[in-house]
């Protein structure tokens, strides 16, 4: 039987009972819609996380202090005090290190920051003058912390746009204003350009002060919480990692690298860990959505079985007029595939619309992937064949005599 005739017959049969066709399709529409919406939201989440990490600089290495040890007891990684400004200076000046461009030690803590009657709890970071280069930061107003500020223990602060809004409200230039961190007064030197972002690492919600001031006057410590290192290019990352590792092992007098009291992470490592988390989460959600797709498929099978029973006489006639088994199977499979692919297309539009709206609401980038469109059509077609198979076999197996007699 020709495709054209097959399609004409199938569409004819489906349009005979439009309400039923629509309802049968609804299950697939919802199933495919849910899968697409969740997959694209998952991808959007992943993209948001990786964009944010990438925006910190792709040739960035982060040296973190190792776990604090007292005897055999090991504390949380990154919570240690094994890194110092001296380590950072050594990385900058050592002749062993040839692949590093900028070194930025940092010390950070959450502190209550006040300005007049307003206050906010935010991340206060002690930085050196190259921090803005390392983190690709540009200033919207004023200037960043300078080398002189660091050397002279200046009480100047660069506040993130979020902090500026929280403390001074919109429309007021905070540069030159005074803020208090831990009861110590600082003069606002500048505000960086907003990088956006949300969640665990929001650069807009931070306050930057000279690292010397931070260590000696605000926090009262002599260690740093991490050292960010900018490699000369993203091609020499591994080499830079090795050079820094060797230098720090020597300085800390550790011979076995497995016993190191620090660790070096590249952006790639952090990205990998973050995407793994979001990936697992979105796979789980998609799995739940896939169950609704299965239920939709069973709905299709149910409707096709009803159709076969209703059209017993017609099937008998077709067989009497010369329709072969395969022809009958093909006809009923075509009908169920048309049903499900139609559902898949509507579901695709529904899913795209849904993920667009949700992305807008929760402020994620909207990702439309070709793979989800291909998925919608292929999967819905597959469901049509899978769940249409049994009804089609049943139709083809009818004896023409019995079928013609059926009332």
């Amino acid at each position, binding site marked *: 039987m020709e495709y*054209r005739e097959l399609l004409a017959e199938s569409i004819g049969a489906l349009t005979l009972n439009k309400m039923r066709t629509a309802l049968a399709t609804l299950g697939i529409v919802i199933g495919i819609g849910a899968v697409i919406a969740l997959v694209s939201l998952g991808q959007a989440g992943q993209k948001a996380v990786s964009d944010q990490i990438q925006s910190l600089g792709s040739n960035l290495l982060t040296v973190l202090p190792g776990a604090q040890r007292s005897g055999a007891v090991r504390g949380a990684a990154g919570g240690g005090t094994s890194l110092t400004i001296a380590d950072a200076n050594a990385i900058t000046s050592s002749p062993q290190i040839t692949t590093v461009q900028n070194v930025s030690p940092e010390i950070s803590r959450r502190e209550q920051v006040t300005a007049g009657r307003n206050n906010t709890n935010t991340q206060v970071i002690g930085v050196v003058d190259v921090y803005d280069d390392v983190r690709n930061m540009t200033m919207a107003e004023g200037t960043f912390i300078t080398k002189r500020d660091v050397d002279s223990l200046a009480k100047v602060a660069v506040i993130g746009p979020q902090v500026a809004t929280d403390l001074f409200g919109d429309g007021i230039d905070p540069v030159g204003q005074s803020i208090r961190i831990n009861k110590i007064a600082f003069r606002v030197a500048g505000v960086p350009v907003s990088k956006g972002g949300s969640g665990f690492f929001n650069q807009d919600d931070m306050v930057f002060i000279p690292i010397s001031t931070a260590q000696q006057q605000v926090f009262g410590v002599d260690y740093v919480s991490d050292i960010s290192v900018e490699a000369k290019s993203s091609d020499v990352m591994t080499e830079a990692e090795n050079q820094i590792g060797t230098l720090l092992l020597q300085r800390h007098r550790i011979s076995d690298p497995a016993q190191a009291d620090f660790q070096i992470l590249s952006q790639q490592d952090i990205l990998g860990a973050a995407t793994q988390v979001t990936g697992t989460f979105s796979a789980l959600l998609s799995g739940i959505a896939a169950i609704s797709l299965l239920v939709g498929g069973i709905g299709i099978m149910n409707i096709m079985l009803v159709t076969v029973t209703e059209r017993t006489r017609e099937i008998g006639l077709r067989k*009497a007029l010369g329709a072969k088994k395969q*022809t009958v199977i093909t006809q009923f499979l075509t009908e169920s595939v048309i049903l499900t692919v139609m559902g898949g297309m509507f579901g695709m539009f529904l899913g795209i619309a849904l993920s667009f709206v949700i992305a807008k609401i929760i402020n994620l980038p909207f990702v439309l992937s070709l793979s989800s469109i291909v998925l919608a059509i292929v999967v819905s077609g597959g469901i049509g064949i899978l769940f249409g198979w049994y009804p089609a076999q049943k139709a083809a197996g009818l004896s023409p005599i019995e079928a013609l007699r059926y009332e």
Partner: protein
Amino acid sequence: MINASHLTKIYKTDAIETTALSDVSFHVDKGEFVAIMGPSGSGKSTLMHILGALDIPTSGSYILDGQDVGKLKDDDLADIRNRKIGFVFQAFNLLPRTTAIRNVMLPMIYAGVAAEKREETAKAMLTRVGLGNRLYHTSNQLSGGQQQRVAIARALVMNPAILLADEPTGNIASAQAEEVMAIFRRLNDDGHTIVMITHEPDIAIHSKRIITVKDGKIIADKKNRQNRVKLQEIKEDG
């Protein structure tokens, strides 16, 4: 054209065997117009199913147009039905809400006839049964007699070896029944071989030969040239 010898059909339901046909032999030549008569339960429907390649006999052989139909598989039987047999059913069995021309084209679609040829043949056949002006009417817009004429056109499009009609006037008003029988007679005059199953003597009388079946056996086989057999006589045999 038809050569049936020692046809036997036994139905088994659970432990009970029912013999619907026992040792039926007859021969139909090309161009004959045969009526198979008998009361209900006589086995004439079973005979119709076997002659129509809708069923196969338990034993015996059935040769249609030189081909042994008795031992074919389902798909080959479908092919025989498509190419060699034109069915006309009591209940018309047209596709619902489908135009006359599409109904008539259906067997040609299954046979893989090209689209232009299909349309041309279907139009010619519908014109031949007097429905040239009703090509695009759907089944529910046609009277019973007209629907049966569409069914006859559908039976003719593959130029089959035999036309097999099962109570063709059972569902239509008598005036239209006469019209339908006139078409059968004309087709027979044009050389078509027709086998018609009926239990109505005044329909059987249009044929040229009447085979009477009872209890699964042939009990009478009479020529009816120029309709010489009297109505009374048919009634007695039935």
